[in-house]
């Protein structure tokens, strides 16, 4: 696949042409002094110099709320999934790693066609980070750069972008650019330098071990009942902010709604979070994770051990730092917790 060099105004024209087509085009836009993914109305709105978005792009594959089934009471249930074709512009490497992980999870064992259908209809234009956010630690998690999952990867080179197409969809897209040169060896060298620098720059919280060592750390006997869980969780509001902003959290709740006519209804799923108080409660009000510390620990173990065991050891924390920013009481930072454990536990 090819690597092209596009002047920024040429890329802007490409985005403008996409917006003019009948397909949905979503990109990163300013929202006050922060950033969020949203539908682009003009190419000027696109801000590829952003630091981090409020919510991760997972909402386009796993929406906050999604109708699964529709039915008439007493009649058959019908699949109701929607999967609009769209182009998603500006996905950072750490978020793309999270999407790659979720692609594996939703396709394995029992194939979740609602997620996969949405995912397969999205063309992703990823971009390397230009401005590190205040809490990013992708450098520590090995996610400051990414080598798969995108159709096109953009790297900012000042007045132009290096654009690497990784799929046929990506090639087709780049072929529409009015003017694009093949990247020179010097350009590719410069891009490697950006990647190298980003591994250093995107590291506001430094993890004191290799990410691959985290499952081993959590496996140590003394970790499960370590005082850190209670220390941190004693300040936890169980508000669910950390799980809501997390690009790798994918737990969901399922509910039914009946229409006003009481004849038709729908079943939908919505984001849920294992730190919320009643997540593990069964009928009869028995709660299998009643204590905040238990739920707090479960979240960290999911990221560092349980989910990795399903996806070949990849850590389900990509270092975006959103939970660090979102947490009211400043207890959610996974690096703080892992480092605290590493002080006491030898791996």
């Amino acid at each position, binding site marked *: 696949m090819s690597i092209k060099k596009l002047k920024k105004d040429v890329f802007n024209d490409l985005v403008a042409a996409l917006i003019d087509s009948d397909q949905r085009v979503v990109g990163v836009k300013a929202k006050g002094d922060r950033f969020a993914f949203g539908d682009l109305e003009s190419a000027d709105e696109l801000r590829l110099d952003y630091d981090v978005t409020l919510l991760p792009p997972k909402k386009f594959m796993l929406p906050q709320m999604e109708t699964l089934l529709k039915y008439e009471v*007493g009649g058959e249930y019908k699949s109701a999934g929607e*999967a609009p074709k769209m182009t998603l512009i500006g996905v950072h490497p750490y978020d793309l790693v999270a999407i790659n992980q979720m692609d594996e999870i939703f396709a394995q064992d*029992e194939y979740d066609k609602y997620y*996969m259908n949405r995912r397969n209809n999205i063309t992703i234009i990823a971009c390397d980070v230009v401005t590190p956010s205040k809490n990013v630690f992708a450098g520590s998690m090995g996610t400051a750069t990414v080598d798969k999952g995108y159709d096109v990867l953009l790297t900012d080179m000042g007045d132009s972008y290096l654009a690497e197409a990784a799929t046929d969809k990506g090639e087709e897209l780049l072929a529409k650019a009015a003017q694009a040169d093949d990247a020179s060896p010097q350009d590719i060298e410069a891009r490697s330098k950006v990647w190298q620098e980003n591994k250093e720059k995107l590291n506001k919280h430094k993890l004191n071990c290799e990410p691959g060592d985290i499952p081993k750390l959590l496996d140590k006997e003394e970790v499960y009942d370590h005082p850190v869980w209670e220390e941190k969780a004693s300040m936890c509001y169980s508000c669910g902010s950390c799980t809501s902003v997390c690009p790798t959290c994918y*737990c969901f709740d*399922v509910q039914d709604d009946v229409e006003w006519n009481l004849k038709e*209804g729908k079943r939908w799923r919505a984001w849920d979070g294992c730190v919320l108080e009643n997540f593990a409660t069964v*009928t009869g009000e028995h709660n299998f*994770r009643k204590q905040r510390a238990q739920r707090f620990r479960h979240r960290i*173990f999911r990221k560092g051990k349980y989910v990795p065991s399903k996806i070949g050891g990849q850590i389900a924390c990509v270092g975006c730092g959103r939970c660090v920013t979102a947490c009211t009481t400043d207890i959610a930072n996974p690096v703080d917790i892992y480092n605290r454990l590493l002080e006491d536990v030898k791996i």
Partner: protein
Amino acid sequence: MCDCCSSKKDIYLPELATVKKRKLMNGTELYLLIQLDSGEELGHKPGQFVEVSIAGIGECPISISSSPTQKGGFELVVRNAGSVTKAIHKLKVGDKVGIRGPFGEGYHIDQLKNRNLICICGGLGLAPQRSLINYILDNPSDFGTLTVLLGTKCYPQRFFREELAKWAEGDDMTFKETVDEEHDCWTGNVGVVTTLIPKVESHLKDSAVLVCGPPVMYKFVLMALEEYDIPHDDIYVNLERRMKCGVGKCGHCQINGEYVCQSGPVYRYSEIGAMPEAI
């Protein structure tokens, strides 16, 4: 829809089924015989569960109570405890429900074959254990001796009474029963289910013990079993969780790294005994 998805089945789509029989067995437990509208058998293993859908209300996991050896539909026992089960209690014969499943691994029959078995059931825990008990009764040559201990909170809450009477009279199993509270109509054992264990002490050696009941019961039964030095490999527990999706995605039923909806709900005590939050 994209090509790779159009050929895949929708794992959240229930199939329609019809209520063929219903009977309120006591104040809270409803018996249902359900048949898939496709005419096919459910094809379950003892100990598995289904997700039952009531249109407009929701879906909830219910253990299958009948043995797969029984044809012509499957049986459920549903306690009126939450919004979906309350709606299930209002079902009449001929009404439609949605069914997904069967889910989980259920009892590992291969591990139980040729063994002497002791089933300890508490309250509604009888419902899932019954799928195994009747399976054993229908395949007696595959198993050793069968002992069933049943504890119910109070006399009026006993269910499957006619079947229990047959179990007590027959000579194909040892059946002992107790109720927690004394009652004028009850002349049998009084006390919690653990009080039955010493009565079958001689059966405990070389048996596999299968335990199913409310969360609080496990602690006491397992403590009582400790006294008899039964290897934890030989104790099986049937765990209850809030399975929402049934297919290992939604996260609700997870015990540490274990998805109960996929690998459970029956586990060897040696597998989960050291696992906090399991019991």
